[in-house]
């Protein structure tokens, strides 16, 4: 979005019409409230950016179908001209006309019509340039169908608009929606506006509305509309004077322009685009350069192609006392304004725009069985008052007073410091330690983070590594969509790819998609809006069509939801993110026959439960509450089916930083939060509990899953059906894959790696296997220098050699303890008390790696340990034999 510059933020409010009582949609579901329809349609307006249009920023829903729209705003408008009673010079008229037409033409290109053109909706910025306000009202209300009030102002309505009639919702005689108006209706309104500008006063003001409209309609019989208007105008003044004014004072080309605009028949009236190219403007058009849309982050063209640096770079940093905040994008400023305590309803209430009556005074007297109420007094506070209120930025300014100018332009070269140096950096470094929820509400912190990420993203993919690094701290909600895209490594011309995917031709999956969408995260306003449904459908279909080897499984809709929500105006990006996410975390989950993938996944998950929480695992296995019963929707949708969006965001902020085994840890962390209740209950209660998952503290869940992840040896979550290693060299800018983020599968496969295992064998094992590589790394046995991780980041480990003493003495890995398999357990599989088991007890809590000769012994030994609630038990894949070739086995020097 554009920088705020000298603009201000404005807000206006209106009500959507209430729905009729007890009417269902064609699919049997309740109708979508009109305010939600409007909210969905509004979103696209945020992307309509043009220097002649007031940038739309946000819309929010209030109580009782109230909507508040936030947009760029300027205090002065064309109506100021009228108030002063000045006649505008013909140059001024032409300039205004040209700029207005530029704006209108741009809107038309986006399929929008203004319809509500009037003097007070044509704002003027400080340089006197035109800014069209409320240009999206007609679009967002579906041509006025979703609101009670007519869109447009009586004096400016084009004759065909009047003739097509007003459709008052309470008037049931007309069933069909009003016919939409075309771009030429705006040209008429423009004509009236320009006429007023020439005459220096408002037209048709003192006549009653119906007379006004009749007058406009009768203009059709007149030959020269401009003259007639002048005469009407003249009923107040001396007619002759005005006539003289029209013909003497107005230059011919202005008169020509007025005539063209005020052509009665639409077919003869030019469109804004045609008018813009008219020779009338020959003198004006050369002063303007055509608007070029800035290149988006993901495109095939060069982003810096049009960058022009001044000869002298120091020109860029001339003014010192600049207002840095106003250089930030409008939506950023609004976001910060909200964080700094801005409250739209309060602002509007203070200005008297929102007036509410006590509800007790507006109760109906009587309600019929079908819900229709009677005797309710008409509440004046529901009437439209579309005055725009300027939102004061004082509070925000005060809040950010101490932020130094340098903070607005952080240097990115220094990869060491995560936060830019500023006066308040101390304060910020303490903020980093606060809970995420608080950080997300801290104005100053968010400002710094947004600026930082904004700059990093501008340098994407070059600064990919830094994006990763900063994302580990946190991701500001405002830029989450793009940051996620960066984390998923989206690159290239995604728009072209998306456009060339056929999203319209019917496919067999359509029916299922159609059923699922109205049930997917519908508590959310965006996703429950008709626009949301359309976008859902298109993104899902695009994915299904472009992945012929995979199929649509229920749950894909939930998976799509967070991406669509974050990139609501950029379907292509939502599609690209989803397409990148699925192979990374859900490789082959969407195969037509995915049972082997899911079965393996769930088995590894139950091993993870046993590894981290043996007591819980034992209990769940005892009552037969296996992951198949509850965890499939968790993993198939990566938890998007079980959590609301705001929790998914925080969960995925971390998930996207981890590798494909991170979801196991999340699963275990969720179970651990419900641990007490699970342990206390039997099968039936557990099923009930999970049928409607209780509230989960997501921040705790994230924290604990990170902890679990750190304790998990990488190879423990090895799956043979995981994504095969990527071809080397696709990390274009050399993303240094850190230990946590890279997948086990991506590591080069060696003799020491884990071997694939048949599913039935895997299922028989309670504890996970780890590879010899991992063991060597974790025990720091490697002879070739230090491991990849520093000591501090590694889980503590103890190797338990369960071969008999003889074999142990012949060679073992250093630091391992020997507990021969045969001696460790008693008849009831309890741990026998002996010095060796005592040592084992003292190592409780560490990762216990069991090393054996025969793998079956290791499996049994591990199972026994889990049975007696030893946490973090795993065993070496392949046993001691794997280590023999490495030359790492040592023989203890004989005791003397």
């Amino acid at each position, binding site marked *: 979005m554009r920088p705020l510059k000298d603009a201000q933020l404005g807000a206006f409010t209106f009500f959507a019409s209430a729905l009729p009582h007890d009417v269902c949609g064609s699919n049997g579901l309740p109708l979508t409230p009109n305010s939600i329809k409007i909210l969905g349609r509004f979103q696209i307006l945020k992307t309509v950016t043009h220097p002649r249009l007031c940038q739309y920023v946000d819309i929010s829903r209030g109580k009782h179908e109230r909507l508040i729209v936030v947009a760029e705003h300027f205090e002065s408008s064309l109506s100021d001209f009228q108030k002063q009673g000045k006649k505008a010079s013909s140059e001024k008229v032409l300039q205004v006309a040209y700029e207005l037409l530029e704006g209108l033409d741009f809107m038309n290109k986006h399929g929008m019509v203004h319809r509500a053109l009037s003097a007070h909706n044509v704002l003027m910025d400080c340089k006197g340039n035109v800014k069209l306000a409320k240009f999206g009202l007609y679009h967002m209300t579906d041509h006025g169908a979703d609101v009670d*009030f007519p869109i447009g102002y009586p004096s400016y309505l084009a004759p065909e608009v009047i003739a097509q009639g007003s459709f*008052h919702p309470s008037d049931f005689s007309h069933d069909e929606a009003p016919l939409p108006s075309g771009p030429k209706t705006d040209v008429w309104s423009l004509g009236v506006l320009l006429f007023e500008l020439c005459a220096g006063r408002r037209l048709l003001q003192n006549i009653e509305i*119906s007379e006004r409209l009749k007058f406009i309609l009768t203009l059709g019989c007149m030959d020269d509309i401009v003259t007639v208007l002048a005469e009407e105008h003249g009923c107040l003044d001396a007619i002759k004077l005005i006539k003289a004014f029209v013909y003497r004072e107005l230059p011919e080309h202005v008169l020509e322009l007025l005539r063209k605009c005020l052509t009665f028949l639409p077919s003869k009236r030019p469109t804004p685009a045609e008018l813009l190219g008219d020779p009338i403007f020959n003198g004006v058009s050369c002063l303007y350069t055509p608007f070029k849309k800035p290149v988006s982050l993901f495109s095939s063209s060069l982003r810096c192609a049009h960058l022009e640096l001044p000869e002298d770079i120091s020109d860029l940093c001339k003014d010192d006392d600049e207002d840095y905040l106003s250089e930030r994008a409008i939506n950023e400023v609004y976001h910060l304004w909200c964080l700094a305590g801005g409250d739209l309803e309060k602002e509007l209430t203070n200005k008297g725009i929102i007036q509410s009556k006590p509800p*007790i005074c507006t109760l109906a007297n*009587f309600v019929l069985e079908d819900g229709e*109420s009677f*005797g309710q007094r008409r509440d004046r506070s529901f009437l439209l008052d579309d005055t725009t209120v300027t939102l004061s930025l004082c509070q925000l300014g005060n809040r950010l007073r101490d932020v130094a100018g340098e903070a607005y332009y952080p240097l990115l070269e220094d990869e060491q410091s995560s936060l830019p140096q500023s006066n308040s950096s101390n304060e910020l470094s303490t903020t980093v330690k606060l809970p995420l929820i608080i950080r997300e509400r801290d104005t100053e912190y968010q400002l710094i983070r947004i600026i930082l990420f904004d700059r990093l993203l501008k340098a994407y993919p070059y600064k990919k590594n830094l994006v990763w690094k900063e994302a580990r701290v946190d991701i500001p909600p405002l830029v989450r969509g793009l940051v996620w895209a960066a984390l998923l490594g989206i690159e290239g011309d995604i728009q072209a790819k998306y456009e060339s995917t056929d999203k319209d031709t019917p496919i067999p999956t359509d029916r299922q998609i159609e059923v699922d969408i109205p049930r997917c995260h519908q508590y959310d306003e965006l996703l429950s809006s008709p626009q949301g449904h359309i976008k859902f459908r298109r993104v899902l279909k695009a994915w299904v069509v472009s992945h012929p080897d995979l199929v649509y499984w229920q749950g894909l809709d939930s998976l799509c939801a967070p991406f669509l929500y974050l990139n609501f105006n950029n379907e292509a990006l939502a599609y690209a993110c989803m397409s990148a996410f699925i192979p990374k975390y859900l490789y082959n989950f969407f195969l037509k026959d995915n049972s082997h993938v899911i079965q393996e996944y769930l088995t590894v998950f139950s091993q993870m439960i046993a590894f981290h929480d043996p007591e819980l695992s034992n209990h769940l296995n005892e009552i037969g509450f296996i992951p198949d019963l509850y965890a499939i929707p968790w993993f198939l949708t990566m938890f998007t089916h*079980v959590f609301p969006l705001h929790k998914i965001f925080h969960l995925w902020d971390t998930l996207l930083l981890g590798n494909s085994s991170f979801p196991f840890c999340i699963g275990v962390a969720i179970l651990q939060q419900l641990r007490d209740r699970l342990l206390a209950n039997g099968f039936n209660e557990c099923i009930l509990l999970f049928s409607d998952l209780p509230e989960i503290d997501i921040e705790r869940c994230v924290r604990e899953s990170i902890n679990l992840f750190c304790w998990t040896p990488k190879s423990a979550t090895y799956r043979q059906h995981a994504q095969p290693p990527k071809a080397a060299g696709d990390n274009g800018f050399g993303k240094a894959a850190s230990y946590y983020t890279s997948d086990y599968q991506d590591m080069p496969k060696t003799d020491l790696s884990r071997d694939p295992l048949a599913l039935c064998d895997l299922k028989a094992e309670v504890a996970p296997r780890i590879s010899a590589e991992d063991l060597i790394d974790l025990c720091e046995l490697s002879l070739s220098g230090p491991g990849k991780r520093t000591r501090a980041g590694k889980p503590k480990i103890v190797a338990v050699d369960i071969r008999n003493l003889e074999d142990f003495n012949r060679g073992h890995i250093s630091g391992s303890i020997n507990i021969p398999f045969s001696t460790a357990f008693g008849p009831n599989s309890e741990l026998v008390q002996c010095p060796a088991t005592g040592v084992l007890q003292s190592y409780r809590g560490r990762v216990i790696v069991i090393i054996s000769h025969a793998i079956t012994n290791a499996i049994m030994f591990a199972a026994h340990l889990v049975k007696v609630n030893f946490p973090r038990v795993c065993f070496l894949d392949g046993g001691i034999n794997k280590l023999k070739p490495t030359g790492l086995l040592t023989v203890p020097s004989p005791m003397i």
Partner: protein
Amino acid sequence: MPSCATMKKNKGKASSTNEKEFVFEFRAGQHNCVLKVPLQFPVQEIINDLHGRLMLLHKIPCYIETDLKSSLSSFVEKETILDYDREAELALQRLTAGDVDINQLTNAWTRSYVETTLEHARPEEPSWDEDFADVYHELIHSPASDTLLNLEHNYFVSISELISERDMELKKLQERQASEMDKVMHELGNTLSDHDVNAVASQHFDAQQVLENKWASEQKQVTGIQKHEYQQWVISLHQDLQKSNSSQITEEIKVQPSQLLEVADPGARMFEEQPQLEESFTIHLGAQLKTMHNLRLVRADVLDFCKHRQHSSAGAKLRRLQTALSLYSSSLCGLVLLVDNRVNSYSGIKREFATVAKECTDFHFPFLEAQLDEVQQVLLYARAQRSSKQKEQPEIPRNGGDDKNKNVERNPSNILPGEFYISRHSNLSEVHAVFHLCVDDNVRSGNITARDPAIMGLRNILKVCCTHDVTTVTVPLLLVHDMSEEMTIPWCLKRAELVFKCVKGFMMEMASWDGGISRTVQFLVPKSISEEMFYQLSNMLPQIFRVSSTLTLTSKH
């Protein structure tokens, strides 16, 4: 390679769609190719997608990509404008041809503007009620609230005295009449005939009527005076407050005689405190995003929520203050009262309710009778509206409408099961709005379903709660106020389950109407059910609603 493809037609507005053919010619090598695409107007699709699909479907070489795109979009643009022009001129023609009346047209426009926009709306007539509401709301949230409450209480006391005096006099009269009657009965057959006895009886009745009327009019007069005085006082206090600075006034208010004399119990009329059984639950609704609500199961008399208790108990005063504070706020309390099909207060629970509503002057809203009169009129208006609409559209018979229509035709001033009227009160102890829901004898039978009018009425009540910020609502769980023989334990359990489940469904529906504002729903069961039954019901509740887990403060492992 002249290809012609029929694309899938897009569904548009049925009235004004038409098909146009887009023709595009290009050269591929030596071939002249023609691409013909029928397009449905108005075009709903995104042009870029359409373009992408054409490229894919017809395997169009990439070197014409940009040409195709620009020619496609200019075609669509041009044709759309033509469509707009045609529709627009059609409308203008209809007008000149006289198919549409110009006066009607412009009047409809005028009405739209006048009824929906502030700029053109008729200026608001000042409403005394709303001004008073503002003033009161301001005062009750100021230090003056205590004085207001005391004043109200004093008025209450004097009404109570009046009522006890009335009761005393009526009692005396009844006693006198009883002894007279005894004498008469004694003489029956001797000196007096049946006729004489009847005469005496009717005379007694008349005397009783006269006395009752006298007291009723007296009470009405007193409440009228009280209301007037009170409102005047509130207004003048407010004016004073505005004139001088507030600290001074608080002094003044304190000086106000706060003669909080505890009057002696004015008789058995005041209900005695009985141990209420109640249990509270916090529940979560919703699959992913959960909203929290409070539920309460209460065993009490429905009028307990209306009656004022003695001021002496601190809880009563607080409750009174709470009700007064929230009267003009956006968190109201509502109560569902089950009534028969007549809008009056002559019999049964309606009469009892009216008695309670009169025990204390309503300083804000019209008397109950006046409100009921208004309801009656609105009801007649609603019936007239409905029947005229039905005549217009006779083809939609509503479900089982015939039966009902007959009923309505019989007596249009009666209400039907599932319909309800609303009365507003400032003088009840815990309630601002009462929903008088009409039920018939059907609710006593064991086999009502979720489609029963009474249940639909509940749904509409909850909907009104949504639109008018009633955040606490009390619902009779068994849909009866009194227990009777046929209401066995299985009957109760079945009924409770039905109402719980339906209310749960409605609450989830409400979340989509108001964005899941937290509310309190109180389920009321009659006083006469056993304690055991009560606990059975309270065990049932958490099985139907998901009760939120208790917060465990154990340390994390």
